[in-house]
């Protein structure tokens, strides 16, 4: 991977919950770590998030969900990305996600789910190790 390419990351709040403390902290921490960060704001539908990922040509999407709807919303977002031919975008997430639900999310292609207590550095390190710039069209 080329060292010059700055990774572009979409931080997204899916669903109806308004808890944006985590999403905003992650967005700022990723920006401070040198990534280009786009934040969607609250209450996004899966389609809005996939559309933003494509429009903004991002390399990864970080999803924050604290409403318990992750088993519905994560797969819907994966589906919406696929429909737009963007299923190579790395998707990771965090929020209130019980351990038992993580395998199901990995199965639909979510690359990593961070659980409460993860430090911002862990997330930054994971991105450096696991996200590649998407090959341009």
């Amino acid at each position, binding site marked *: 991977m080329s060292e010059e390419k700055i990774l572009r990351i979409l931080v997204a709040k899916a669903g109806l919950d*308004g808890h944006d403390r985590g999403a905003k902290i992650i967005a700022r921490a990723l920006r401070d770590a040198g990534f280009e960060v786009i934040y969607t704001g609250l209450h996004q539908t899966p389609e809005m998030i996939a559309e933003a990922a494509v429009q903004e040509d991002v390399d990864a999407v970080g999803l924050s969900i604290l409403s318990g709807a992750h088993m519905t919303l994560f797969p819907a977002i994966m589906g919406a990305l696929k429909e737009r031919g963007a299923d190579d975008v790395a998707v990771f997430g965090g929020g209130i996600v019980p351990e038992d639900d993580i395998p199901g999310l990995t199965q639909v292609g979510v690359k990593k789910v961070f659980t409460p207590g993860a430090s911002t550095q862990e997330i930054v390190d994971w991105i450096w190790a696991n996200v590649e710039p998407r090959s341009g069209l």
Partner: protein
Amino acid sequence: MNKQEWLNEKYPQQEERSQRFSTISDMEIEPVYTPDDLNGSNLEGIGYPGEYPYTRGVYPSMYRGRYWTMRQFAGFGTPEDTNKRFKLLLSEGQTGLSTAFDMPVLMGYDADHARSLGEVGREGVSVSTIKDMERLFQDIPLDKVSTSMTVNCTASVLLAMYIAVADKQGIPRSQISGTIQNDMLKEYIAQKEWICPPEPAVRIVTDMIEFCAKEVPRWHAVSISGYHIREAGSTAVQELAFTLADGIGYVQAGVERGLDVDEFAPRLSFFFDIHNDFFEEIAKLRAARRMWAKIMKERFGAKNPRSLLLRTHCQTAGVSLTAQQPVNNVVRVAIQALAGVLGGTQSLHTNSMDETLALPTEESVTVALRTQQIIAEESGVTNFVDPLGGSWAIEALTDRMEKDAFAYIDRIDELGGIIRAINIGFPQKEIADAAYRYQQQLDAKEKEIVGVNSHVVEEERPLEILKIDPEVERSQIALVKQVKQERDRAAAEEQLGRVHAAARNGQNLMPVLIDAVKAHCTVGEISDVYREVFGVYQDPAWL
């Protein structure tokens, strides 16, 4: 020897374990407090409990009269599921109900709306129609319990439903009592569940304050909430300042409506977060009471002593709980609950140990309630009124938080009031900055959390967690569809038309809403009227 001499000569003789001592809100703490620290406010000025400025408590006898209301917030799944939990809590000795609604209710969508998919009954109880509300309070005598409902942008609809259920049960409106959160200003600042922009939202809140003052006198039409502000990452001083600034916003709106301040102010209530930092939290509640009394007296000219009282519900800090070693949360909650009690709260919710994982199980809710009962019945603290009053440290902290919070309120006044401040993102940005600063302190281990960045262990025993059956969503969708099918369609449409007209022409919405929900108009349909008439607020997405 005076304090400065002691600090210069004696104190440095021993080493400190840290270079800097500060509260969880990053307020710096001195090694010792003395009478010299009470600049101006001599101890006599603090007064007595139940006396202006109420620093020491809103009532003379406090918990020697009666304990605070033990009010555990509950709601999940179908109305029947929550009704069952309510009955369990009442049978365990809880003294008031508190209802959590699901995200679709909190954002104004029915269970059968596409945006509700996956969210129905997950984070609270699902209610779309008056039928759901009747099932929720089945066999619970509404004139015997006080009910709190945590809902904001659709609060007008849910209160209309509660009143309609009472009407149908034949209970006079003057006999029902409770609280509806209905604090829209803090939604834009912190919790972020909204429909329309701040100006029409405050108009609806004012309609409710006016209606309740006249028709439902035992109801608290708004619970001015710092809880969500703090959970969003504010400091304790910011929580204090923005909450009271929101309170000023509502009182101002009531006065501008032409209401007599003493007619509605006695029914305003508050809701604060109780975080980990023990003394800071106690001082916060003491400062809050004193500030509100001064604001009501000096700024709004209130004459009725009851208008000056800041009566508050408190909840332990959900955000302080850890997914790691979750049983430790019982201890955190106990310490926080004790701070709430020593701070003089009127009502308390104690969080359950498993709340960072999922909604709480019956077992963990019971432990949380028992925590309050142990404080009330065993610890002995309830035999004293404001036992920390007169402590130099507590009084100095109280003074300082009051001063710093009033500085924020002055700033908000300079910006043109709380709605203007919200519209330019002032409180939102202050909170986001504080939240980020705290996260950095955690990452650098300048602040420690046991199990997260200190005393970390590998192996953990997973707790049993509450699972919401996917059948809940299916059955709630089926029920709302059925109600829409079976109701008198023309009557429902006519009532929605009346809501539309009242929304447009500025007439008080509450009477027409009560008629509308009786005609089976739904949460989502009435919210659609609000969307159409008032417009939809978009998240400015400030970072």
